[in-house]
């Protein structure tokens, strides 16, 4: 053969050699090499090597496999190892239990976090073409007024204009989620839709949803068309064919059902079950006649655009200031339009005000959960390693004898890793069961709806196996290495401590404490901030005020309603208005006297009783006269307006709402009060005007009497006046608390995790101290015999733990400070970081630790020295 110099790849040969029966090996490689030499001649070396590999792969089958070297002797050894592992777990029940509890907690926390995060990441996956869809949002800046926030609110003209003017914008679709529940009436059935959107005719096609019934081309084209979800249609029409039927909906207009679509899945940002055609709102076309939805000025529409595949969204964003300049120059300096990718909208849009009707997650929460779970996992791992290391003294005789009998280091490590493996296996099974049992309370706390089936998915099962392998290897191997390390001579001679383990154990302990202190500081701060938000004075008396949302039905008879209510002794005051804290108010621009620019102003339309019902303090002048409409052309403003304008005496100053409109005088100044969530909004300058013909909400102040009975009375009055609609009300203080739902979820989770972390730390400390004391028993006994006092012995043991905790504190405190102050930054109204959280965290850890250590050392110190010293 001429090409003897070309050799087949050696690594393949070695693999084959390792795998194949030695007797067959020579024949096999010989044949392979013969073919290889031929192929080199025929097809060149490169191809020959590839063929060699492919042919060699064919030999990796069971028939050629080396008969296992694991002889029956090896089996016996492994059998023995497993047996000893079980026995040792059984014998050291306390430590086994500590390890097991630690592992179970860690695996449960991590598994839940994993499934939660996975679930969050799966949102909006069902929407085809999602990667080309963007949601328009804007940064609203106004330096003179101190406004700077992100919001999805856009005007109805932005989407159409972008699509007209820029070829890379393929299409747009606008959405207006209706502010309120809508009652759909068919014959004598009234069904509530809490998720109604008004959308452009292309909406369903835009997000790639198919219709079950109806013509996709025309479904939402005609004015007063409505498309319903399958479920909603079923509850309204039963088994009748819904197409072409009419339902009474928004503003008591008749809507024709033109299509039926599938329910949105749970994991969707878009939440709708009824869609009304946009054309219904266009003036002169549809009966809703909302000109504001179709102009530049009003900002209340949500806009989605679809870009061409090849387009870089940044380039489109760069063109938008120019569009604003040309069409809406008044706001070009205040509104900066941006695009949020649809796929990122759910998790990454939490800082953007998103309005009712959309579901949104929180990346902060996801990160916090992931980090907390990871930290708890670390603490538990450290516990495990620490306790295993401390057992070196107990296992060394076993190791010594096994070594003498000829066990290799690797086999011995296997012996200890198998012990970890058994513990982890048990812990994983228990964790899995715990999670399945705890799922619904966990869902409640985190505000999610993870179904049970999520835990049967490959990801969850895979995670369990992952944990078992990971923990067995990552956590089990190091102690196994240490435990199996000592040379036979030193073991059998009876040398005491194993060298390296001591300082390492202290490092691990420090690390563990640092994590724990860190988590406690974070939790305390979150608790303080949430309490602060919930208890901050709102400028009015929020307790015992409830707001009834009026429907047209009762709105028409509101006088009767009010009078009936006032007949009840426990109803102190009643006010009917468009605006209430938490709803019905909006912002616009005004032109106060002496201010050349336009001023963003919060507008409240209220009646004469509003101030009394909410207990709002009057700072100057007076409010609207009761029982009279004489004040229709007068304004009341809030203190913020006066402060912003720098007026000494606001009474008599004039305000107008358009540059050439009528101006009206101010008759009173009231104290600032909050009308939005304190988490994001400041108080703006406010104008309150008298409005008695907009019966949207009735606010009712009730007295100290029986609340339940009073509500029953209200309901009774309501149902006498309303036939179609049920009573719908909320307590104002409850409404404000509901605004902090994200914070309170974060709070609950942070509390749970830091509680678990400190528990695990305490558990680990308990185990560690017990083991150390076991080793030091003789030392302590001798000290006692020589006359040491109980306190000196306790302080001897405690001293090192105090040092450990101090170092941990020094590491954790700055880190926690940095992270938490970053979180606080996001709040307009926030607490000072202060030192209280640090003092509490440090103190609490120190106290618990000293308590555990002292208890254990007292027990040891109180044993009779003769007992411990006698058995040598």
């Amino acid at each position: 053969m001429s090409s003897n110099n070309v050799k087949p790849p050696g690594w393949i040969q070695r693999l084959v050699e390792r795998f194949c029966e030695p007797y067959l090996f020579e024949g096999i490689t010989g044949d392979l090499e013969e073919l290889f030499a031929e192929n080199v001649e025929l097809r060149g070396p490169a191809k020959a090597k590839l063929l060699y590999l492919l042919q060699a792969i064919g030999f990796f089958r069971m028939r050629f496999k080396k008969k296992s070297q694991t002889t029956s002797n090896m089996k016996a050894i492994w059998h023995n190892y497993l047996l000893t592992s079980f026995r040792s777990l059984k014998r050291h029940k306390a430590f086994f239990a500590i390890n097991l509890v630690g592992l179970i907690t860690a695996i449960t926390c991590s598994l839940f976090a994993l499934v939660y995060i996975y679930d969050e990441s799966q949102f909006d996956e069902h929407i085809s073409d999602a990667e080309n869809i963007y949601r328009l949002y804007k940064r609203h800046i106004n330096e003179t007024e101190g406004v700077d926030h992100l919001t999805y609110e856009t005007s109805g003209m932005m989407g159409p204009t972008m699509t007209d003017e820029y070829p890379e914008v393929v299409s747009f679709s606008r959405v207006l989620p209706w502010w309120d529940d809508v009652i759909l009436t068919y014959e004598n059935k009234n069904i509530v839709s809490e998720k109604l959107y008004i959308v452009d005719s292309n909406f369903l096609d835009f997000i790639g949803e198919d219709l079950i019934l109806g013509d996709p081309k025309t479904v939402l084209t005609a004015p007063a068309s409505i498309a319903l979800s399958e479920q909603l249609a079923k509850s309204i029409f039963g088994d009748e064919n819904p197409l072409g039927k009419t339902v009474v909906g928004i503003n008591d207009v008749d809507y024709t059902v033109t299509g039926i679509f599938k329910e949105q899945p749970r994991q969707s940002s878009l939440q709708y079950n009824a869609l009304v055609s946009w054309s219904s709102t266009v003036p002169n076309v549809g009966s809703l006649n909302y000109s504001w939805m179709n102009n530049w000025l009003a900002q209340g529409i949500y806009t989605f655009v679809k870009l061409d595949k090849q387009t870089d969204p940044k380039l489109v964003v760069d063109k938008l200031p120019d569009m604003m300049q040309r069409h809406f120059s008044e706001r070009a300096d205040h509104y900066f339009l941006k695009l949020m990718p649809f796929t990122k909208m759910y998790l990454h849009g939490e800082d953007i005000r998103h309005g009712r009707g959309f579901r949104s997650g929180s990346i902060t929460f996801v990160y916090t959960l992931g980090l907390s779970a990871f930290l708890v996992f670390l603490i538990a791992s450290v516990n495990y390693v620490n306790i295993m290391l401390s057992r070196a003294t107990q296992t060394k005789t076993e190791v010594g004898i096994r070594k003498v009998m000829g066990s290799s280091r690797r086999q011995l490590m296997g012996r200890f890793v198998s012990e970890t493996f058994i513990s982890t296996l048990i812990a994983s099974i228990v964790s899995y069961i715990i999670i399945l049992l705890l799922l619904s309370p966990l869902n409640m706390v985190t505000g999610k709806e993870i179904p049970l089936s999520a835990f049967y998915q490959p990801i969850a099962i895979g995670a369990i196996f992952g944990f078992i392998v990971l923990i067995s290897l990552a956590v089990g191997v190091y102690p196994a290495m240490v435990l199996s390390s000592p040379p036979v001579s030193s073991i059998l001679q009876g040398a005491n401590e194993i060298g390296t383990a001591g300082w390492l154990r202290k490092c691990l302990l420090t690390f563990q404490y640092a994590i724990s202190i860190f988590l406690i500081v974070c939790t305390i701060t979150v608790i303080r901030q949430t309490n602060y938000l919930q208890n901050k004075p709102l400028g009015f008396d929020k307790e015992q005020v409830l707001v009834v949302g009026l429907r047209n039905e009762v709105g028409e008879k509101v006088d009767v309603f009010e009078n009936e209510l006032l007949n009840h002794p426990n109803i102190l005051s009643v006010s009917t208005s468009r605006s209430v804290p938490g709803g019905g108010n909006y912002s616009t621009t005004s032109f106060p006297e002496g201010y050349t620019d336009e001023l963003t102003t919060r507008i409240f339309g209220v009646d004469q009783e509003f101030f009394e019902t909410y207990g709002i303090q009057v700072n100057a002048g007076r409010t609207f006269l009761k029982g009279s409409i004489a004040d229709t052309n007068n304004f009341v403003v809030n203190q913020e307006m006066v402060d912003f304008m720098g007026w000494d005496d606001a009474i008599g100053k004039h305000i107008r709402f358009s540059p050439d409109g009528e101006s009206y005088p101010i008759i009173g100044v009231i104290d600032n009060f909050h009308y939005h969530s304190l988490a994001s909004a400041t108080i703006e300058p406010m104008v309150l005007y008298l409005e008695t013909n907009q019966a949207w909400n009735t606010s009712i102040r009730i007295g100290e009497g029986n609340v339940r009975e009073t509500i029953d009375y209200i309901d009774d009055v309501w149902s006498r006046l309303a036939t179609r609609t049920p009573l719908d009300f909320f307590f104002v203080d409850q409404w404000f608390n509901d605004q902090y739902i994200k914070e309170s979820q974060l709070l609950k989770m942070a509390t749970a995790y830091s509680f678990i972390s400190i528990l695990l730390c305490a558990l680990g400390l308990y185990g560690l101290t017990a083991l150390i004391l076991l080793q030091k028993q003789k030392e302590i006994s001798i000290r006692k015999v020589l006359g040491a006092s109980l306190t000196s012995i306790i302080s001897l043991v405690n001293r090192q733990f105090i040092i450990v905790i101090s170092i941990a504190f020094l590491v954790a405190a700055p880190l926690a400070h940095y992270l938490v102050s970053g979180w606080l930054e996001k709040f307009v109204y926030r607490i000072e970081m202060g030192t209280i959280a640090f003092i509490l965290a440090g103190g609490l850890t120190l106290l618990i630790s000293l308590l555990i250590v002292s208890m254990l050392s007292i027990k040891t110190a109180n044993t009779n020295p003769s007992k411990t010293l006698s058995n040598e």
Partner: protein
Amino acid sequence: MKGTNLGELEELIMLTVALLYDEAYGVAVMKEIKKRCNRSITISTVHAALARLQSKGYVDSRYGEATSERGGRRKHLFRVTKAGQKVLEQVKEQRNAIWSEIPSVAFNA
């Protein structure tokens, strides 16, 4: 030991081993089958079949002399055993018997 019946490929390989007599090793068997039946079999399949036949006792094997070819590796040579010969003859007889009794109309229709 598994059943004694012979697979089609096993039969073919045994016949080839008998044909090649003293030169029957993996590559040679593979090439002979390719030449005669125009059938491509991978080398590992040949080895697997031979190993299976050996475990059934129909072939036995030895190693040949080392040469400078094949990276200095000896050939793993196979030979059909008495038992193998018997089973091959059995198969042949069974087939012949069936052939002889097929009515002539069966293939003429």
